[in-house]
């Protein structure tokens, strides 16, 4: 079947199998920031935005994406320069495998805070990001960077 999706601002027409997951289609189409890590929708490494809201692309059928707008880490990296700097200066990306998914989530979180949907405090930020697992950093370096970026005191 064919789907039309807007990926990082550009309309694409893709031939997919109805049973394809969005993660596999995105990777096949070259959006390689989207990582496969857990296969069970548990780790957050495959996080993308669908119509501006975070979704686990490993658990979304690509067929349901027809007409929708998808944003991957590639699409927001330029906007997130300040965040990238903050994370890098903590050395908290470490192996980096969870980093693009986390960046997508932080991007969404920033918008939610701006819209008053999520409170701007440490606990709320941690709760929002709980689904993004990291095995290297122990999270603290990530959080120092994220709090700084979001201006969480």
């Amino acid at each position, binding site marked *: 079947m064919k789907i039309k999706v807007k990926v990082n601002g550009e309309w694409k027409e893709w031939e997919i199998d109805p049973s394809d997951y969005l993660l596999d289609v995105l990777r096949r189409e070259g959006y*390689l*920031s*989207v*990582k*496969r*890590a*857990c*296969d*069970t929708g*548990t*780790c957050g*490494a495959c996080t993308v935005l669908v119509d501006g809201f975070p979704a686990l692309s490993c658990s979304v059928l690509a067929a349901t994406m027809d007409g929708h707008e998808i944003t*991957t*880490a*590639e699409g927001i*990296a330029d906007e997130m320069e300040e965040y*990238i700097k903050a*994370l*890098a*200066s*903590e*050395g*908290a*990306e*470490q*192996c*980096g*495998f*969870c*980093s*693009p998914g986390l*960046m997508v989530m932080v991007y969404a979180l920033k918008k939610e805070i701006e819209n008053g949907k999520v409170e701007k405090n440490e606990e709320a930020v*941690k*709760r929002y*990001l*709980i689904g*993004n*697992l*990291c*095995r*290297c*950093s*122990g*999270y*603290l*370096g*990530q*959080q120092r960077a994220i709090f700084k970026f979001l201006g969480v005191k």
Partner: protein
Amino acid sequence: MREVKKSVPKKDSYGLIRGKPVYTDDIAPRDSLIVKVLRSPHAFARIKSIDTSEALTMSGVELVLTYKDVPRKPITRAGQGYPEPSPYDKFILDEYVRYVGDEVAVVAAKDERTAEEALKKIKVEYDVLEPVLDFEKAEGNPSVIHPEDDIFPQFDIGFDPKRNIAASYEMEIGDVDEIIKECEEDPDCVVVKDRFYTQAQAHVMLEPHASFAYIDMSGRLVIVTSTQTPFHVRRQVSMVLGIPIKDIRVIKPRIGGGFGGKQALHGELIVSLVTWKTKKPAKLVYTRREVFEATYTRHPSRFDVTLAATKDGKLRAIAYDVLWDTGAYGEHALTTLMVAGSKTLPMYNKVDGVRFRGKVVYTNHVPAGAYRGYGAIQGNFALESAMDILAEKLGMDPVELRLKNIIREGETSPIFKIMGEGREGTDMIIKSCKLEQAIRRGAEIINWEKKFRKREKRGSKVKGVGMAIAMQGSGIANIDMGSAIIKLNDDGSFNLLVGATDLGTGSDTILAQIAAEVLGVSTDDIIVYSSDTDLTPFDAGAYASSTTYVSGNAVRIAAEKMKKLIIEEGARKLGLGPEEVEFDGKVIRAKDGSKEVTLKELATVRYYTEDQKQLIADGSFVGPESPPPYAATFVEVEVDTETGKVDVLKYVSILDIGTPINPALARIQAEGGAVQGIGMALYEDVKYSSSGKLLTNNLMYYKIPSRLDVPDIHVEFLESYEPTGPFGAKSVAEIGIDTPPAAIANAVYDAIGVRIKSLPLTPEKVFFAMKK
């Protein structure tokens, strides 16, 4: 120091965070054959018959391999230096399968779906055998896991497979039984005898194991793989497949974490075999389930610890009797076992007698292998729990008991010489050890004197504090070598080529910092390329906390040679002797200030116009010793007496790692290690069904800490300088993980007076122990 002791960002940070395609699966050729493995549903079985004909006739299936199609050559996949201290007890494919997940057959097909369909079409009849699932019943069990006669060790490791023993080791200094007997009979002495258990832990690096292979334009086999040990991969693939080393190139791209789990070979042998047979690119990316079911865990263990001490708290003897579960194959069996002793016992070096006896048994579980801590964390839980019990029996503060007995600068331990990694060790005088300061500082921050045995209550919750100390190593002395090449470019920048393997830690960056410091240039002027067996010099790999110390020293040596070369060539250009000039990183200048040439000018001249030659230097280093980093960890917990749940409120770890080359990256290592250790202490647990099937085969059943599980962690590095390390550095990778289990268990005892002697400290276990 200008470039060292400076928190510069990792060289790969921008690419990684932005999601550049830099990992194995991202860069595999689009037309790669997809390789899938049929895995055993039985814990122990012999393949009676295997029929691949139907799978082979499927359209899109390129190749199906069973044990009948592969060379029968015993190997170890351990990824260690040669000759390996692990037994050669594994075959690429075998007629026996020894755990649920063991390889039965390999399929290569045009795409994932076809490969998976083909797996289903392979018909296997198994002769199901009685598995050995309890490691305490493995030795001498009628079920022999390795009955085959063509397996062997490289040297004596106490290998006795007919009795399910993969390795064994014993050593004794002094007459330990006699000392214990004396102490038991002496009213002025105290003896502690206790048994401890540690569980299997899963690495859960975020990137699953991935490899691909292809044939290059000259017919050579190129393997791109998420490995910690590219040079060992090249050697082992060569050995098993009979392809000369010169015809193999191994490239490590960026790696999504390893923690020891990628020290060994997993997919590499299989993709190599497929590509070598088909001459087509082939890719194998493990599913998360496969990572859990068919790679490695930490070795589970049982420790019987005996401590004997005088009433005033002087330790007289330590004895360990250890049983170690290596699962189906003996990878890292002997060495992790020995590290349980060699990286715990020397902490208390003033004893009159010390004994270590251990056996490593085979079981029909997922093989155990290298995992951060590498035996030391298991030994640490047993010893540091026993020390807490001893302190209680002596009526002495555990802090005071440690301070009375610990190793200090300028001292040694006979263990260093006796226990190495799989063989004899190396004598060493401890040149840097701030353990005493670490203990005192940690006690101060946690407010030990105000909190210890105070058991502050809040409703059903009780607070407690506990502590533990640890040591680790910095590389494997006299065995593992690292090397580096530095070459000057015509703009005055340098290429640093290292075999060392950055698996996400930032070692490329800290090695560049070391080179920059020596050369007096900016880290930005050092371009690092690492881990490519064609283009970078040899390095044993990233394991045993070796990269900063071993590879770092190699880089230091290469950079010193380069500096000398620049001074010589600069002086020659200026018509002076080398002793008449100095180099400040930018300019070679006559000491009298009369003339100068910039590095850029010198390079341009040497490459284009005059006495043309490449300025290049190399360095190799093998540690003459393995200086230990140390840690003292203090935790405050709160135990809910109604549920048994343990919350870590505060975690304070004071470390002596020598000079932190990059303090930000060192801090992340210490924090990340602590959180992995807390996971092991409290809930991480690899579990099997009664028939040996792995139950914890995904991230919903196997829980790793999330960001809400992380307590308030305070990490601090003491001023310390290791004279044998590059700019005073030791290691930091593993030391952070060692202390959480014992420190937390000791804190739980402080809170509720209940001693948990087996990990993890789940609410259920704590609750039922309280009710006893």
